[in-house]
């Protein structure tokens, strides 16, 4: 017996500590916002734009969510359940957008679709029209932003849906088929309901990420709450108003999380059969097969292929590469991403295991995780600085690195805890029940039953976290010590100086550094099904 008899308080301690650690910057930023005064700018914002900001954000979340669901779920279903030309390649290609930050995709599309960009220039050359003689989709718009964000974020749902379809016991699907259910009704009545918690979890993550996005929305000129928050900060110099808008974002995150938990609670399906069988992917008819191939090509081109090729093109086309070496930023990015992912991961596992027992602390843990994920990194960073200043400390020296990693944890733990929680939810409750009835003490149960189950979602969590931190911009920009530029910081510096050609190379390097973990992730997932033949 390992640590057999521990009191209830000691059992709660890790969860409490982890929650406190994540809550401090959020609470500090919130308090400094509420007590900062400066009501004049806030009054102006409320009277002019606050409702429009909020409506824009809600509209953005709705349209982005729809686009993601409409592409990610069919794609996940096709590559998991059917065989068609190129299926094996798309299985991993479709995850690649995970490696490219939303702001990078936005740079590329803004350049490509702009009035001076190659598409419109070619159109004018061919048609002889002037720049004002035709209609062209405007990427600098709310639908444009949703197009970009959904392209960058659909892999969250694609991954969770694919994992869910992959681990669904085939018995249920076979039973449905045997009972004469049509393929569509099998999807609708068997596969989707059992995958729903995973799909909603992925969607919640993607939408929280979309709500916190600043880079893409600002670059495309769409005034979401997050953009409004920075405007309050930079145009009105009112950090208090900014923090209050962060509170609205926090509320949105709690709402998304409540939806997710409600969905999870509703789905009564539990995988009970442990019997796996070799996966038999029924081939699609030639026409349907090629349609499936075409669909997957489009989805891949949208989120990754087109923007990345455009960036490579820009990088090669012009001589503007910047003069500073990118090696140090690359090394810094990888070091910070590793350290950040490690801390997020540890806290994420602690919370995922801890919240299963419910209670007030568990609710608080979920709230601060979701809140951190939906609030822009700069707000959390400010909270960290405020907390630090309470102790008379500043960011000089190595302390800045520790604070930065701490802020990464506050920002991204949700992304790590979700896959782990999903793994725990999908495991039959009967296993824990069996352990309990066999007299296993609580800590033993956690160590020998829950943790191994949780770790099955852990690789996914760790890799997602690494890539998330690698892409992070605002907190890194604020907190990094001298000589700790990351690739994201370099890309942003060049882009905000309107040197897109020089920005293209660091953008591509971030994507390249994120590709390896994403490929490992993909490989892990395609092996996840015991019945899979190789």
């Amino acid at each position, binding site marked *: 017996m390992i*640590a057999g008899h521990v009191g209830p308080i000691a059992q709660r*301690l*890790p969860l409490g500590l*982890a929650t406190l650690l994540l809550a401090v910057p959020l609470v500090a930023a919130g308090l*400094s916002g509420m007590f900062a005064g400066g009501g004049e700018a806030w009054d*102006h914002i409320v009277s*002019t734009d606050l409702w429009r900001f909020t409506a824009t954000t809600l509209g953005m979340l709705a349209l982005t969510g729809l686009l993601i669901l409409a592409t990610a779920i069919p794609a996940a279903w096709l590559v998991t359940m059917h065989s068609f030309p190129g299926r094996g390649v798309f299985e991993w290609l479709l995850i690649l957008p995970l490696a490219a930050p939303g702001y990078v995709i936005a740079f590329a599309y*803004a350049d490509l679709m*702009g*009035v*001076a960009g190659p598409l419109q220039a070619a159109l*004018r050359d061919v048609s002889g029209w002037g*720049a*004002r003689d035709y209609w062209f989709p*405007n990427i*600098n718009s709310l639908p444009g932003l949703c197009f970009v964000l959904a392209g960058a974020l659909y892999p969250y749902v694609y991954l969770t849906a694919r994992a869910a379809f992959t681990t669904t016991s085939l018995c249920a699907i076979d039973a449905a088929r045997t009972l004469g259910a049509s393929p569509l009704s099998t999807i609708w009545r068997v596969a989707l309901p059992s995958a729903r918690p995973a799909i909603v979890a992925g969607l919640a993550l993607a939408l929280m990420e979309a709500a916190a996005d600043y880079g893409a929305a600002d*670059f*495309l*000129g769409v*005034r979401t709450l997050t953009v409004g928050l*920075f405007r309050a*900060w*930079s*145009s*009105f110099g009112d950090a208090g108003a900014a923090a209050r808008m962060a509170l609205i974002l926090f509320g949105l995150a709690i709402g998304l999380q409540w939806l997710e938990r409600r969905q999870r609670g509703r789905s009564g399906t539990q995988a009970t059969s442990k019997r796996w069988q070799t996966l038999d992917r029924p081939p699609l008819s030639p026409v349907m097969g090629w349609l499936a191939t075409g669909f997957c090509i489009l989805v891949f081109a949208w989120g990754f292929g087109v923007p990345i090729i455009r960036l490579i093109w820009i990088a090669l086309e*012009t*001589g*503007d590469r910047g*003069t500073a070496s990118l090696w140090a930023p690359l090394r*810094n990015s990888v070091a910070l991403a*590793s*350290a950040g992912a490690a*801390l997020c*991961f*540890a*806290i994420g*596992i*602690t919370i995922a295991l*801890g919240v299963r027992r419910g209670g007030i602390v568990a609710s608080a843990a979920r709230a601060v995780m979701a809140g951190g994920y939906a609030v822009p990194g700069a707000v959390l*960073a400010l909270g960290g*600085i405020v907390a*630090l*200043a309470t102790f008379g400390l*500043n*960011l*000089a*020296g*190595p302390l800045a*690195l520790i604070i930065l990693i701490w802020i990464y944890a506050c920002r991204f733990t949700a992304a790590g805890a979700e896959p782990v929680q999903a793994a725990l939810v999908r495991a039959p409750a009967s296993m824990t029940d069996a352990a309990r009835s066999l007299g296993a003490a609580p800590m033993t149960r*956690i*160590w020998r039953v829950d943790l191994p189950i949780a770790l099955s979602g852990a690789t996914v969590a760790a890799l997602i976290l690494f890539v998330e931190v690698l892409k992070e911009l605002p907190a890194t*920009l*604020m907190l990094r*010590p*001298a000589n*700790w*530029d990351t690739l994201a910081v370099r890309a942003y*510096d060049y882009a905000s*100086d309107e040197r897109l*050609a020089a920005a293209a190379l660091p953008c591509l390097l971030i994507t390249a550094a994120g590709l390896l973990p994403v490929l490992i992730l993909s490989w892990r997932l395609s092996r996840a099904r015991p019945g899979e033949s190789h």
Partner: protein
Amino acid sequence: MRPHSILVSAVLAAATLVGCGNPSAPSSETETATDEQQILTLYSARHYDGDQAIYDAFEAQTGIEVRARESRAPQLLETMKAEGEASPADVIIAADAGTLWRFKDAGLTQPIASEALEAAIPGALRDPEGHWVGLAKRYRGIAYDTERVAPDAVDAFVKLADPSLDNEICARSSSNIYNLSLLGHLMETQGADAAAAWADTVSDQFARAPAGGDTDQIKAVAAGACSVAIANHYYWVRLATSESEADRDVAARTAFSFADTGNGPHVNVTAGAVAANAPNREGAVAFLEFLATQEGQALLIAETKEYPVLDTVTLPEGLPAAPVSGAETNLGRLGENQVEAARIYDRAGWP
């Protein structure tokens, strides 16, 4: 191993990873270096590859090592506010006078009190109370289509409100500090009501909704989507001197006008200040004085294509001669007008 000891060991692992991640980073020296070598901490909202050359030249001359924390200005401001007296900042550099006004307003700067700087830099480019000095000039003007627009139709900002330019104007978002400072200047020369009416008419005459940066607006003029664009001079100069043929072509189809505001063109500055609690005050003043020397000026503007504040410095290649009339409006006023300017833009519906 219990869950919380996993947590502890992961934190340790994280710390170790970071420690190993960047062996050349100076973080481990921070505590020990102060005795032997003077250090100057710079909070900079500027970010150019060439800035390291400035720090190196300053160190070669004075032996003072420069550590730069680069971020966006509002975040640097909040950082300094939160740090209070514990702030390590010595020098603050911002790419806009209005920004430094905010630092001053928050009590984060102190009078520089340097005779060398007062002698070298024109009065309008310095804070009246000596809290900050302009170090490099930029002009905000109008880039225009040379085939469709006559030069005298865009020699003043008020002419953008002329009905002949309806549906012809491209401009970036009003939340950009350059546009806030421009309106702040027009509020001084035209009065707040006339400036508000101007913003109202101009935003009604937009050919398209504001999107992208100044460079995007100039490119839109070249592509024919509009015929005039509000832009800073160096964006046009960078296109004209670019290695890309497409960029040079954009500059060839357009021209840049140093448009008048009512008392000369709109000038803004890259500016520097000494932090209120600067641990190394003397080093901070020495650094600002260095930036106002021939050598410092040349390094400061080589990459940015800004104009020097010293008339004796040779202009970087491709930079046209600066307009003769200097700004009569003290740049400090732009900062004071900033918040009102943001309100005017909001009411005018200039996104």
